[in-house]
């Protein structure tokens, strides 16, 4: 079901629910050539900044460019690893502390490909997609998130 190669939307308004994750996992029960799934979830952390404590992150993106780039990354990862499926979801808008903002999901016949592809996808998503996080503080102020 993932083999047709066309850009697909990765953006979700608001947090990613655990029900959505469960549904996505359940959808793969019919793919009997899958032996392993690797999942990464990004969750909003209550970081302490000099200016205050993070209560939420407000995500914005240059959506058209991000989708083009995400498609390019998908193609590269599919070419590099023998994957059965790959799913990427990133939140837009305000995501509160404890909520999920990123969901990366790879599946393959043998576990190593799924795991390595998942790690690499997360790194590339953070480094290459034009997405910005504004960290909302409990002091009413904000700071711009910096990826390390």
């Amino acid at each position: 079901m993932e083999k047709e190669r066309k850009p697909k939307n990765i953006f979700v308004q608001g947090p990613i629910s655990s029900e959505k994750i469960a549904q996505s996992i359940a959808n793969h029960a019919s793919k009997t050539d899958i032996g392993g799934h690797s999942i990464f979830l990004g969750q909003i952390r209550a970081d302490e900044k000099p200016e205050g404590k993070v209560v939420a992150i407000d995500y914005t993106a240059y959506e058209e460019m991000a989708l083009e780039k995400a498609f390019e990354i998908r193609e590269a990862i599919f070419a590099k690893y023998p994957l059965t499926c790959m799913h990427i979801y990133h939140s837009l808008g305000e995501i509160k502390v404890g909520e999920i903002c990123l969901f990366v999901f790879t599946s393959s016949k043998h576990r190593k490909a799924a795991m390595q592809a998942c790690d690499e996808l997360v790194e590339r998503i953070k480094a290459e997609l034009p997405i910005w996080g504004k960290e909302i503080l409990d002091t009413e102020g904000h700071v711009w998130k910096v990826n390390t």
Partner: protein
Amino acid sequence: MSNLIHIKAFGMVAEKIGKESLSLENPGTTEALKNLLFQNYPELRSLKFTLAVNKKLTPGDIELEEGMEIALLPPFSGG
């Protein structure tokens, strides 16, 4: 004759210049555009940002043509 380029600003850049989009008379190249922006918005000088032209990151100085979409991109911080 009008020769406009369209500029989108994101994240901290949009915050600093107080808008998410603007149109400018084409200054000719990306380097000339940066100088024009620094003149109009001096607060941009202290920010780190890169330019995308028609949704692609542009290394070096690029010739600008009418109708191009230029984006001002601060460091990415998704995930």
